[in-house]
């Protein structure tokens, strides 16, 4: 009985501790840090504002150095090869990444990340594409593509994209502007769980509880009779 009580206390402790951090779990293969949303979904819980980023890229002998610019929360990283910029006599090139304060909702696209504005003091060399990595949350469906726009309220163009490390999506670009990751809202989100209207976790837990009750009770009764 004492053991059962201790297990109950430990389960309650875990529930309290896990509840205090979104998504409410101790392990798994979610992103290493909670996503900082501009427009958090209801299930996000406590949310911090997304960070901006800045980089000063040295130019040596007229060639910009290999460099990465990223936001402080690491939600977007853009990597540049040597000579990626048309330096034009500059000794330093500045790159700024700013999360938008609003969440664009272009027709036909559902964004699952924040939208970011990337600017630089020099244009990119079209022969040296920059690598752009966007992290996304496990509270949203996986994005299918990164989208780019010159105006957040204008047309967003789908870019050729591929999955990177877990919960990241990668693309390349030769121009700056606005970037966000999402999927075409006319199709189901890639990798989305659609059984039970998308409510997979409660269904899993319910099934586990039913298994425990339906199979556990007869087993316990049988053991009691035997003993």
């Amino acid at each position, binding site marked *: 009985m004492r*053991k*059962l009580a*201790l*297990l109950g206390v*430990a*389960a309650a*402790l*875990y*529930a*309290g*501790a*896990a*509840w*205090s*951090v*979104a*998504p*409410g*779990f*101790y*392990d*798994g*293969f*979610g992103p*290493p*840090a*909670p996503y900082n949303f501009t427009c958090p979904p209801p*299930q996000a*819980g406590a949310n911090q504002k997304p960070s901006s980023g800045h980089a000063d890229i040295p130019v040596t002998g007229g060639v910009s150095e290999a460099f990465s610019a990223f936001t402080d929360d690491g939600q977007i990283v853009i990597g540049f090869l040597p000579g990626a910029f048309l330096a034009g006599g500059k000794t330093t090139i500045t790159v700024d990444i700013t999360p938008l304060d609003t969440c664009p909702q272009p027709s036909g696209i559902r964004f699952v990340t924040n939208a970011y504005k990337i600017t630089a003091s020099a244009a990119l060399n079209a022969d040296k594409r920059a690598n752009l990595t966007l992290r996304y949350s*496990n*509270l*949203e*469906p*996986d994005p299918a593509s990164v989208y780019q726009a010159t105006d957040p309220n204008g047309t967003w163009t789908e870019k050729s994209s591929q999955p*990177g*490390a*877990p919960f*990241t999506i990668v693309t390349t670009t030769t121009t700056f502007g606005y970037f966000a990751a999402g999927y075409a809202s006319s199709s189901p989100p890639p*990798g*989305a*769980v659609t059984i039970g209207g*998308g*409510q*997979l*976790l*409660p269904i*899993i*837990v319910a099934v*586990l*509880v039913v*298994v*425990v009750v339906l*199979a*556990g009770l007869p*087993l*316990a009764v049988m*053991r009691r009779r035997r003993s």
Partner: protein
Amino acid sequence: MIAAVQARPALRAALVASLVLVLEWSRALGAAQPGFTVVALLLGGIALAAVAIGWPADRLGLGRSRLGLRLIGGCALGAVLLLPAAVRSGTAPLLPAGLAMAAIAVSIGEELAFRGALYAALEDAGGAPLAVLGTTLLWTLAHALSHPPEFLPAVAAAGLLLALWRWACRDLVAPIVGHAIADLAL
């Protein structure tokens, strides 16, 4: 050398603890490298499972007696581990096949290493209280590289729950099943 280590339970527990920590941290660092995630998780899971080699099955909490109850216990643990996330968020991404395999490998490896070999070594060195608290502490430390600090209380609480089950039921099957279910679901 091996005989000397086996004759000193405290030394053996310290060696097992160090090995498990190094393996878990290596796995976490490797898994963070783009393109190496699945391989690092699979190799890490296998390496962690290998820590249990040489231990008798009953010392690890493994066995086929009361297997039905053990499996049901695993379902119960899985439900407890998933409940807060299920209440907070109904949606769950589907793990890609490679990552799902890796999740299973890591779940089995971590349980064999922490609640299996490390638990048995610490129990030999200082009894059940040391085994429960020691595995919980090392389990939490092992996740310090892969989880942000605010997640560590939940990691510790999960470790305590699984270790208490191991102690109360002298069983590792349920923690393996519960851990695997939880990792596969999220």
